[in-house]
C-alpha cells in the first residue's frame, strides 16, 4: 500500500518530520518497506527544447545535443540517450544544479566536447517511469511548458513523501488513507477528522431508483446502488491523477479515477456500470450457475459456479464477479452518460473461495477478503459524487436516491468485555483503566466502564477485533511494544534444559565422522523421476502434488541419490578425494489405512577416494567408518553379514546388525549406479538408521580391571574357504580364548595358487593375558590348541 503523505494529511496535520512518521508507522505495525521523496530537489531542473542532434566526432555511444534552455540557446550538451528527436521537450539539469542523491552537475569535457549540463531520465529525477516508455530521457508532452520553465512548475510537482507500507492481513482498515491517517493521528495525539470535500449534489428522487434484487444475501449481505446522470467523460484533474500515480495507480478517465480514488481513500471498493448497457437498467445479485461463463475486465473468460457471487443485470445476464472484478459487457465507455454506482459488502470467505478458485487477484478482492468496513458505503457514495462533481465537465452531475439492500448476515460491531487486570497480566504492565481508555478511544473504540471491566464497542472498520485478546493487542500497539518492561519468566515448574539421548548421539556421530575427515553435506529432500531407478532403488516414493519443478516431484526414500549428485557436483569442479556424510529424513509411502508418510532418519556416508587409490579403498573406508562409529557409540554385539543390497555391488555389500536387528548397510556403490550418475571410480557407502540405532544395545559403562601381568602374543593361521567369513573364524577363536583373550586381530590375508581356488589363509594375532598371574607355557599351549580346534 503506497500512501502519499499529502493525502494522509487530508485527515490530520501529521505534523512531524518524515523520519519520526516512518518510525511511528513501524512501531504501529504498519511496516514501512520504503520511503520515497518525490518532487524534491528538482528546483534547478528546467524544461529544454532539443534544437539539433549531431554525432560526437570522437565517440560512438554519445552524441552532441543543442538545446534551448529558455534563452533561445543553443546550449551544447553531451548526451548518451537515444530515445529523443529534434523538437522534443526534455528536462535539463544545468551546470550548478544538484539532483536527488546529492548529485552535482558541473561543466565537463567528454572526449574533448564540452557538456553544459545534463539531460535527465525519469529515474534520475526520481519520478515515476511511465509504463512502456523507451529507455532514456524523460520526454515531456509537446507544448507542456515553454523552455526555461522549472520542471516542478511544468509538471505541477510538489514535494511529497510516499510511504510504501506492508499491511498485515489483520489490518484491512489500514488499506486506505483514512485508516492509516487514523493510526498515525492517534499515535501523535492529533485530532482526526473527515476532510471537507465540498459536498455531493443533492439527491434527486426524480432520477428514480434502479431495481436491485439480492438473491444471494449470504454472499452479498449489503448492496447499494445509486443512479448518476451527467457523468463527465474527460480526464480527471491533475491533483487527482497525481495522487493516484503516487499511490501506484494509472489514471484512466474521470469515472474510473474517482472510483479508484474512493477505494484508496476510504477502503470501499466500488464499481460503476454503464446504465444503458445494463439489461433492465438494474441489478440482480445471485449465485452463479454451473457452467456459466463471464468475460472479466482483464479479458479472460471465467467459469462460474454456485459458490460464486455473480452480479447480473436486471435480466439476469452476468456483468461481474461480485467483489472481485467487473465484466466487460457493462464497462463504462467514453459515451457513458448514466451510471449505476455499486458500493457493496461481500462475505470475506466467499470472496476468498471464489478468488482462489479463479486465481483472480484484484484490489477489490484483497480488501473484501480481509474485511471492508460494512458501514462506509454511504460515505463512499457521497465522496464519489462530490469528487466527480469537481472533475471538468462534472458540474452538471445529478444523483438519484441510493437503494440499500441489506441481509441480516451483515456483520454488526460487537461490544466486547475488556478486563484491565487481564490486559496487565497478558502484557506484563500496570495500566489503569483510564490509560487503557486513552489508548483505545482515538482508534474509534467506545469504552464504557462497568464494574472492574469495560464494555467496548468496536468501530465498524475494525471488525477483525472480536475478542478481548484482540483489544489487548490494540492496547499493546498503542502503548508501544518498546515500553513494555522485559522480564524473565518466574517459572516455578520449569524443567531443566537438556538434550535428549538421541540428540546427543546425532552430535556424537557428526563429531566422529568430521574427526575422521568426512565433511557434512546437506542435500534436498526432493528427487526427480528416475533418480531412484538410476540409483538401483525401488521407484515407489511419495509424490509432491504441486512441485515447483518436475525434478523436485518426489520425496527421497534414500540419501543415496542426493549424495551421488553432491559428489558429481564436486567432481565436475575438478575436486576429488571426497568423503561426505549426511543425516536426514527419508520418506516412504504410508502403510494401508494411513495417510501420512513414514519418516525415518538416516545417516549416510559416501566416499570417493582419489584417483590412484586401490580398488578396495572405497569399500574399506566404508567399513572403517562403521567401525569408528560403532566404537565411538559403544555399540555392542554388532556383526556384518554379506547381503545383496539394492544400489550396491552385490559381492561387496553387507548388512550391519546389532543383536540380529538390521541397523543399515555398508558396501560399494554398484558400478552401473556410479556411471548412471555421471561418476567414475568406486564409491564406498555406509547407511545407518538412527531410529534402529537408538535402541541398539551398548557396551556396559561399568569399569573393568586391567591386568598388571605380562601378555603373550600367539599368531595363528587358518586356511578357510571364501564362503566362510573371516568374522566367523575370528568369533570362534575369540570364544575359545575365553577370559584370557585380551585382543585379537586379522593381520594378514593370503590368496595364492598354493591354496587353490576359493580359499585363503587368514593370519590372526591373539594376545593372551590373565588377570591374576603370568600364563605358563602349558596354559598357553592349551589355550592355543583350544583356539585351533574351535576354528577347524
Amino acid at each position: 500500500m503506497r500512501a502519499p503523505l499529502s493525502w494522509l494529511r487530508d485527515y490530520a496535520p501529521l505534523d512531524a518530520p518524515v523520519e519520526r512518521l516512518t518510525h511511528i508507522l513501524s512501531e504501529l505495525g504498519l511496516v514501512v518497506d520504503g520511503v520515497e521523496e518525490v518532487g524534491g530537489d528538482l528546483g534547478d531542473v528546467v524544461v529544454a527544447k532539443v534544437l539539433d542532434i549531431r554525432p560526437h566526432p570522437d565517440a560512438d555511444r554519445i552524441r552532441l545535443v543543442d538545446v534551448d534552455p529558455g534563452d533561445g540557446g543553443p546550449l551544447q550538451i553531451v548526451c548518451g540517450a537515444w530515445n529523443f528527436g529534434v523538437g522534443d521537450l526534455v528536462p535539463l539539469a544545468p551546470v550548478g544544479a544538484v539532483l536527488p542523491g546529492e548529485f552535482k552537475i558541473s561543466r565537463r569535457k567528454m572526449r574533448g566536447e564540452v557538456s553544459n549540463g545534463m539531460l535527465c531520465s525519469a529515474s534520475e529525477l526520481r519520478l515515476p517511469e511511465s509504463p512502456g516508455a523507451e529507455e532514456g530521457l524523460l520526454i515531456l508532452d509537446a507544448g507542456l511548458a515553454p523552455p526555461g520553465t522549472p520542471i516542478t512548475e511544468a509538471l505541477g510537482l510538489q514535494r511529497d513523501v510516499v510511504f510504501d507500507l506492508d499491511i498485515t492481513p489483520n489490518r484491512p482498515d489500514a488499506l486506505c488513507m483514512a485508516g492509516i491517517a487514523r493510526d498515525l493521528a492517534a499515535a501523535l495525539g492529533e485530532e482526526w477528522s473527515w476532510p471537507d470535500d465540498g459536498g455531493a449534489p443533492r439527491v434527486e428522487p426524480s432520477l428514480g431508483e434502479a431495481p436491485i434484487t439480492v438473491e444471494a444475501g449470504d454472499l452479498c449481505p449489503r448492496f447499494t446502488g445509486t443512479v448518476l446522470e451527467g457523468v463527465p467523460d474527460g480526464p480527471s484533474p491533475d491533483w487527482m491523477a497525481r495522487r493516484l500515480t503516487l499511490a501506484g495507480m494509472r489514471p484512466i478517465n474521470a469515472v474510473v479515477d474517482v472510483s479508484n480514488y474512493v477505494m484508496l481513500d476510504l477502503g470501499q471498493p466500488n464499481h460503476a456500470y454503464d446504465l444503458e448497457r445494463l439489461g433492465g437498467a438494474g441489478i440482480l445479485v445471485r449465485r452463479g450457475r454451473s457452467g456459466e461463463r463471464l468475460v472479466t475486465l482483464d479479458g479472460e473468460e471465467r467459469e462460474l459456479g454456485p459458490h460464486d457471487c455473480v452480479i447480473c443485470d436486471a435480466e439476469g445476464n452476468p456483468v461481474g464477479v461480485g467483489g472481485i472484478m467487473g465484466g466487460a459487457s457493462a464497462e463504462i465507455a467514453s459515451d457513458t452518460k448514466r451510471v449505476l454506482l455499486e458500493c457493496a459488502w461481500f462475505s470475506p470467505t466467499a470472496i476468498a473461495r471464489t478468488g482462489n478458485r479463479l486465481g483472480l487477484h484484484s484490489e477489490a478482492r484483497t480488501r473484501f477478503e480481509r474485511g471492508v468496513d460494512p458501514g462506509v458505503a454511504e460515505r463512499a457514495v457521497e465522496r464519489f459524487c462530490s469528487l466527480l462533481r469537481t472533475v471538468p465537465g462534472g458540474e452538471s452531475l445529478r444523483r438519484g436516491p441510493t437503494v440499500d439492500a441489506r441481509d441480516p448476515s451483515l456483520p454488526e460491531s460487537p461490544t466486547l468485555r475488556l478486563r484491565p487486570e487481564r490486559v496487565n497480566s497478558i502484557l506484563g504492565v500496570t495500566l489503569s483503566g483510564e490509560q487503557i481508555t486513552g489508548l483505545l478511544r482515538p482508534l474509534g473504540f467506545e469504552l464504557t466502564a462497568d464494574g472492574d471491566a469495560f464494555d467496548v464497542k468496536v468501530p465498524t472498520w475494525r471488525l477483525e477485533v472480536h475478542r478481548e485478546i484482540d483489544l489487548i493487542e490494540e492496547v499493546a500497539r498503542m502503548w508501544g511494544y518498546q515500553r513494555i518492561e522485559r522480564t524473565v519468566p518466574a517459572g516455578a515448574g520449569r524443567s531443566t534444559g537438556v538434550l535428549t539421548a538421541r540428540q546427543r548421539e546425532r552430535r556424537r556421530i557428526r563429531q566422529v565422522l568430521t574427526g575422521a575427515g568426512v565433511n557434512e553435506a546437506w542435500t534436498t529432500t526432493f528427487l526427480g523421476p528416475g533418480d531412484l531407478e538410476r540409483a538401483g532403488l525401488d521407484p515407489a516414493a511419495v509424490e509432491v502434488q504441486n512441485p515447483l519443478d518436475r525434478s523436485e516431484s518426489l520425496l527421497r526414500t534414500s540419501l543415496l541419490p542426493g549424495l551421488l549428485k553432491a559428489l558429481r557436483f564436486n567432481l565436475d569442479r575438478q575436486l576429488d578425494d571426497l568423503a561426505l556424510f549426511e543425516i536426514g529424513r527419508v520418506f516412504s509411502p504410508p502403510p494401508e489405512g494411513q495417510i501420512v508418510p513414514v519418516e525415518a532418519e538416516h545417516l549416510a556416508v559416501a566416499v570417493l577416494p582419489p584417483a590412484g587409490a586401490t580398488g578396495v579403498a572405497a569399500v574399506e573406508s566404508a567399513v572403517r567408518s562403521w567401525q569408528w562409529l560403532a566404537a565411538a557409540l559403544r555399540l555392542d554385539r554388532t556383526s556384518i553379514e554379506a547381503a545383496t543390497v539394492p544400489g550396491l555391488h552385490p559381492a561387496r555389500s553387507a548388512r550391519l546388525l546389532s543383536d540380529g536387528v538390521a541397523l543399515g548397510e555398508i558396501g560399494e556403490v554398484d558400478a552401473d549406479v556410479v556411471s548412471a550418475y555421471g561418476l567414475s571410480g568406486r564409491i564406498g557407502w555406509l547407511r545407518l538408521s538412527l531410529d534402529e540405532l537408538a535402541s541398539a544395545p551398548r557396551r556396559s559403562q561399568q569399569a573393568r580391571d586391567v591386568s598388571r601381568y605380562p601378555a603373550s602374543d600367539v599368531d595363528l593361521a587358518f586356511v578357510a574357504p571364501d564362503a566362510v567369513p573371516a568374522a566367523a573364524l575370528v568369533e570362534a577363536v575369540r570364544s575359545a580364548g575365553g577370559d584370557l583373550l585380551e585382543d585379537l586381530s586379522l593381520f594378514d590375508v593370503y590368496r595364492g595358487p598354493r591354496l587353490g581356488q576359493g580359499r585363503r589363509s587368514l593370519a590372526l594375532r591373539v594376545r593372551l593375558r590373565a588377570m591374576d598371574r603370568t600364563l605358563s607355557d602349558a596354559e598357553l599351549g592349551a589355550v592355543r590348541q583350544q583356539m585351533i580346534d574351535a576354528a577347524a
Partner: protein
Amino acid sequence: MTDIRSEAQSLVEEGRRRLAAAPDLDAFLDTEREVLGKRSALAGLNTRLRDLPPDERREAGAVINAARTELEAEAARLRAEWEVRRRRERLAAERLDLTEIACAPARPPLPWSGRGVGHQHLVTSTRDELEDTFVAMGFTVAEGPEAETDWYNFEALNMPPDHPARGMWDTLYLRLGEPGQVLLRTHTSPVQVRLMEAGELPIYAVMPGRCYRRDTPDARHLPVFHQIEGLVVDEGITFGDMAGIIEAFTTAFFGEGMHSRLRPSFFPFTEPSAEFEVTCPICAGEGCRTCSGSGWIELGGCGMVDPNVFTAVGIDPEVYSGFAFGFGIDRLAQVRASLPDMRALLDNDVRFLTQF
C-alpha cells in the same frame, strides 16, 4: 523364389545354432558378425534379388527381411544374456569378504585423505549453537515430523480452511489422503501443537527442523530450509517475559552489546504478534550494507499464543498463557557468515563446506 525362402529359413536355423554354441562373449560377438554382418550368407541372399522378376522380387525381399529380423532378435537376446553373465562374473571376481576388513586392526576411515579434519555443515553447526544457547536458558529441544496433516500445520494454529492467512505460506502438498490433507510443513509450528497436545505443562522448548515452501529459490530463499521455534506455556507468562527471553537469547547468542526490539506484526497463531529485530551482527549496530544502514536486522516473528490455539489443544487460556517465537536458521547463518547467495548451502562444494 521357393529357393530363397528355404535358404533363408536354413540360414536362420544355422545362425541360431551357431550363436547358441558360442563358448564365451568374444566368440559370440564374432559369430554374430559372421551370421548377420555385411559378408554373411544372409546378406548374400540380397544380391540374388536382382535376378528375380519384379513381382517375385518384392516378396523375396520381404522373406529375407523377416529372416534377418528373426535372427537379429535372437542375437540381441543372447547378447543380453552374455552381458548379464559377464557382469555377474566380473562382480563375482570382485567378491570381498567385508569382515576381513572389519577384523583387521582398526585404521582411520580415510587413510589417504589430504583434506584433513572434516567440517560440519554451516547450517547444522548453527543449529547446534542455537540449541546449546536455549538449553543453557532452560529449554528442551523437541522435534516432529516434516510431513504433516493440514490440522497440525494450519487448522490447529487458528487457520481454518479458506482462512486468508494461509496465503502467507506457499504450501507443497503430497499426493496422499484427500487433496490438500497431507503436506510438507511450512514451519516448525506443528511441533508446538504436538507438544501442547501431549499436555505436559509447563513447556519451555525449542523446535528446530526442516521446513518447506513452494518458493522459487533465490539468493535469500530456499524451498527447503531450516527453522527454529520456541514455545513457553506456563501460568502467568506475559508479553514482557517474551521480550525478556528474546533479549536474553540475543545477548547470549550474538554476544555482549547485542540487543533485540519488537514491532507489531501479524501471525494467525499469536496475539499480540511481533516481529523481532536484533542488532546487526555484522556492524554491531553501526549501520552497514547487511542491515541497509539501520543497525538492525529482522530475525523472526513472535507473539503470545492465541487463545484459539490453546482451545484447539485443550489448554485453558484463562489459566495458562504463553508465547512462541521462530526464525530461519539458514537465514541467520547467511547473515552471520555474510553469505551472498543462500543456494551455496545446497551445493555441497567441499571448498565451501570446509570453510566452516
